[in-house]
């Protein structure tokens, strides 16, 4: 399940791009989930672990991916750190839910991300309560952002 601490959080990795630059592994980029997320969010195609084809920028390296995709990859690969998911736009929301579908994921949000009109399960850690849709999430988490 996706667990979110809303608002300021000590020891969170806020600058996820710098962390990614120094921590990512080549095999992470070729992972099918990463390939899908890069295609969906950045509209870019993974050619190899060191080469991605962007429709706007041309051939780029993994460190030139968007902040949102880099954060998603970190969240999916590193379990012992909490990352600032406010680097992710609303177009990353479904991927956060997918990453957390079968495991416990903890992230930090400093804004209300739009998780869409469907049902979900998100633990609002500040309140220790589960939100099942956006209405419940806004009511539970709004006061913290």
């Amino acid at each position, binding site marked *: 399940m996706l667990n979110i601490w809303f608002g300021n959080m000590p020891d969170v990795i806020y600058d996820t791009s710098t962390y990614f630059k120094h921590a990512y592994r080549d095999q992470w980029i070729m992972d099918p989930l990463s390939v899908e997320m890069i295609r969906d969010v950045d509209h*870019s195609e993974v050619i190899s672990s060191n080469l991605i084809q962007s429709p706007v920028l041309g051939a780029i390296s993994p460190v030139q991916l968007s902040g949102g995709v880099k954060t998603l990859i970190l969240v999916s690969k590193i379990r012992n750190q909490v990352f600032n998911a406010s680097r992710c736009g609303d177009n990353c929301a479904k991927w956060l839910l997918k990453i957390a579908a079968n495991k416990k994921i903890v992230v930090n949000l400093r804004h209300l991300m739009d998780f869409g009109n469907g049902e979900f399960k998100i633990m609002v850690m500040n309140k220790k309560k589960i939100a099942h849709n956006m209405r419940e999430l806004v009511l539970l988490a709004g006061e913290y952002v």
Partner: protein
Amino acid sequence: MNGKYTVKIKDRRVRYNFELVRNITVVQGDSGTGKTTLFDMVSAFTRLKERSGVQIVCDRPCVALHAELDWQTRLAGIHDSIVFIDEDAEYIGTHEFALSIRHTDNYYVIFCRDSLHQLPYSVEEIYEIKTSNKLHTFRKIYRRQKDYLYANAAGKTKPSVLLTEDSHSGYQFYRHYYDGTSVSCVAAGSNSDIFSWLKEHHDEKVFVIADGAAFGSEMNRVMGLQHQFPDKITICLPESFEWLILQSGLLDIAGLNEMLNDPSSYIDSQRYFSWENYFEEYLIQHTFGTYYAYSKSQIHSFYTIRENSGKIIALIAANMPEA
């Protein structure tokens, strides 16, 4: 620094064209739209100027401020410039950052989705980046509708509660206007208290009126709540209450229309952190010593006379509760 600035930034691959109107511009939106690319281009130009391969056309220098420990020292050396700050910089949300930029003569372009409650940015200056081929432009995230509405509660029932930020002159004005009617006027306490009040009263039909000039940091959660209760909450955000008075035609002040048509040419960012501060001072100064002298703490009866209050209300009347 004052005025509007057109900024054109390009390299061999991408182009960005946008206009800055106020001291603080916030850029949000989806991932993968080119925010970091824009910041990186400004950053390269800051270090290497034309030798970076980046071209920038703007009447003021465009510089990048990085997420560094000595950001305050760097900032102290930047004047009359447009300062770009990427979302890696955690200091953006701090009180120290707000204090540091408050009396500077720069404009700031901040890439950040966090709700920056320390900064009084306008609902009108929150953008996302839209792309057409290789050209990137800014587009407002929150679209203003008629009568300064940003969200209009569905349904025929008029609101029964009018919610203001604080209990100053604006609240006093509305309370007087609705005196003796079924509409109750409530002051939340501050702009950051509006969300909590709405959350606790989401079964009531509420007309929120707040100062759009400094309501930017509240938009994410207040509009998020409105989206969940679309038939209950109406959001009306004129620049400020003083701006409404100035706009109403109630006062005959030389040069007023020119100022209202182009505030950014008149409002010095070093002196006024938010446009609402300017409008308040302008109104106080231009009515000082008259029989209709304006005071923020206590509304003068001149403004609450039905004939006069009607002119102010007319600017936002269409969806107001009926008096």
